[in-house]
């Protein structure tokens, strides 16, 4: 990596000469292997709100391993910056909060380190198998320690459901009927919206239907986006949009927020972290919402997908990998830390046992539903396996572009074409980069 930056280095020599008087890079290169009298300072890029308060607990108890959180704008910008820093050869933090779907990309760019040798290997039994698999990519290596997961759930306005006499859908057929009933009763109301802007949302829905968009077969990748499960999901939502009973505008817009407030968005297929979003965007509707498991394709064998969820990874530029792993292990598995994560950041922890003892009281926004976390636990149990590939961002931006066109056209057939286009763009990109593809 350094070699390819030689020209830059020459060019910057002048800059360095000019500048070095004023500012020096802090490069204390200790081995960082945890000798007790050596003080280690770690930087941690993360975007979960209030994470610094959890880290404070660690810093008080561990004067020799001090962690500083640099708050990031969210999963995508943080990863973008990390990849740029890796290319440049310096500037990366020691630790980074990484969403599960980004792990293959980060491993492929040699951005995050294999920490199996630093004690992370022993943690496998602490986490559900599916989650653990997404930080090992099915190999002997361990690339991150799971922090939280995002099993999908269905949120709905209980008051409007009762008023219109709609019962809570348990299957997607029932969901479609409920959508028709609600929109017929009041044409300004929708049970939900198809959001071309949220690839993670559509991925979760496809995962529930049994999709796994990538696969590893020996030394070759497979891309299986344009396959039966995803086609089924696309055709289903395309049909509802074509019928006009489901909205076609993106989520997370001011308009969508207004819809959550005024009741024109009657439901939301979100995930376990949904209460935070709902309370932030529509605080006045607290107590009117209820959570239920995501509707199923087959009521007799329930399944689910993930939307969101992240892990703590150690970057390849960290000079203190062992200390970083020690901290990351504490953060995501220690009962006190997990409890603090729940109360301060509102995440749904991945560590099975610690989560069970930490998640006792329903979130304030759902105080009308004391069994909120029982529903969540049920949702978490049935999450299926899903393999992400090294070019998730390409697939996701293809989703944005292709499904935006489809949603705008309101044709179910266009939704199927969008799936085909996603497959082609993703596969072509992998071939062009030189990956071995089946």
């Amino acid at each position: 990596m350094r070699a390819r930056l030689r020209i830059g280095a020459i060019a910057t020599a002048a800059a360095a000469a000019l500048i070095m008087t004023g500012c020096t890079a802090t490069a204390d290169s200790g081995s960082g292997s945890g000798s007790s009298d050596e003080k280690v300072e770690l930087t941690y890029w993360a975007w979960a709100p209030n994470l610094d308060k959890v880290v404070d607990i660690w810093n008080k108890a561990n004067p020799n391993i001090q962690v500083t959180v640099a708050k990031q704008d969210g999963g995508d910008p943080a990863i973008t910056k990390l990849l740029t820093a890796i290319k440049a050869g310096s500037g990366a933090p020691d630790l980074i909060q990484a969403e599960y779907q980004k792990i293959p990309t980060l491993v492929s760019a040699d951005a995050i380190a294999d920490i199996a040798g630093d004690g992370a290997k022993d943690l496998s039994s602490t986490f559900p198998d599916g989650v653990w698999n997404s930080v090992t990519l099915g190999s002997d290596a361990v690339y991150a320690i799971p922090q939280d997961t995002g099993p999908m759930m269905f949120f709905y306005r209980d008051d409007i459901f009762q008023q219109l006499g709609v019962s809570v859908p348990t299957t997607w057929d029932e969901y479609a009927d409920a959508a028709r009933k609600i929109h017929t009763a009041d044409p300004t109301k929708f049970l939900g919206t198809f959001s071309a802007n949220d690839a993670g949302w559509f991925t979760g829905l496809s995962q529930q239907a049994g999709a796994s968009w990538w696969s590893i077969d020996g030394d070759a990748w497979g891309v299986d986006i344009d396959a039966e499960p995803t086609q089924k999901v696309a055709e289903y939502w395309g049909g509802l949009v074509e019928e006009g009973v489901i909205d076609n505008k993106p989520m997370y817009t001011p308009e969508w927020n207004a819809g959550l407030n005024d009741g024109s968005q009657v439901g939301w297929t979100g995930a376990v972290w949904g209460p935070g979003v709902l309370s932030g965007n529509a605080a006045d509707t607290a107590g009117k919402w209820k959570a239920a498991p995501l509707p199923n394709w087959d009521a007799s064998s329930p399944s689910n997908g993930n939307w969101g969820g992240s892990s703590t990874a150690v970057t390849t530029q960290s000079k203190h990998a062992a200390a970083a792993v020690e901290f990351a292990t504490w953060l995501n598995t220690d009962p006190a830390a997990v409890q603090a994560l729940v109360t301060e950041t509102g995440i749904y922890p991945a560590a099975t046992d610690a989560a069970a003892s930490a998640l006792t009281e329903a979130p304030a926004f759902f105080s009308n539903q004391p069994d909120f976390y029982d529903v969540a636990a049920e949702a978490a149990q049935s999450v299926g396996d899903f393999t992400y590939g090294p070019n998730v961002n390409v697939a996701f931006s293809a989703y944005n572009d292709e499904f935006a066109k489809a949603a705008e056209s309101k044709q179910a057939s266009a939704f199927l074409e969008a799936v085909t286009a996603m497959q082609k763009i993703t596969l072509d990109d992998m071939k062009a980069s030189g990956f071995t593809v089946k």
Partner: protein
Amino acid sequence: MTATVERSVKQRRASQRPAALSPAKRKAARKRAVVPYMMLLPGIVLFVVFMAAPIVYTLYLSFQKTVVKGLGLGSGARSQVFAGLDNYIASLTDPAFAASVGRVLLYGLILIPTMLVLALLFALLLDSRRTRARGFSRVSIFLPYAVPAVISSLLWGFLYLPGVSPFYWIFDQLGWDVPSMLSPGLVMFAIANIALWGGVGFNMIVMYTSLKAVPSEIYEAATIDGASEVQIALRIKIPIIAPALVMTALFSMIATLQVFAEPMTLRPLTNSLSTTWSPLMFVYRDAFIRDDVYTASATSILIALATFAISFFFLRVVQRRAFGQED
């Protein structure tokens, strides 16, 4: 930085003093020959380090690419190789890039004439003796220039979305069915409007200050000759500020080719904007979403070359036309 300047100051002071005292004028002249270079030094060093070197580096990157082996996992699976013209061919043959260029040309055709005509109209009205509330209007129209594009796009986003917009509330009350400004057919106008809002005041001020610099005797003479205000505006004022019009047109064109922040900020609000709506969004997608700085660099070079070409061509045409009028 300042240290460098001060050092050069001291050196030069030290060297200047004996020269001033000494009557040997030739020596002083020789000393003076170094002066402009010393004064240019900070600018040239900064230019080389922060503009020329990055451009050269971009040029270098544009001829490279990465090659992945096998699964591409773990260190050593990626290597950087010479790509020849592959990256240039890739972006030139990508229909998404061609589409983004087409969009921006159309966008420029909508935006630039509207903005310049409005700016000129406002400038002439400000310069008219019979207009009132000039101070208020001038400040109000100029105000949006101070609002960063990221923020102005957010504001206009709220005013565009039918669910939260006061305008659509009024249309609703009137029973009109107005399509959303962010629908595919109108989204270009929506973006052009944000750019117009942010830019019209700046161009107006440039033209207005040029008008103010024209001696009033010229107008008085024309008035005595019986010319109306409109005639004065068309026949005297506009030709006189032609250089200002050329400059504002040139800068508007450069800004148009580089449109980025507005569509980028509006994109999450609508299905009508693709991730490659404008050429710079195309660069952004390659660099940051696809993690391919090499193709992004090639496209950057193409955009920069196009900017040079268009600026040069525009100035040529303007110059020839102006000459034609002279003869």
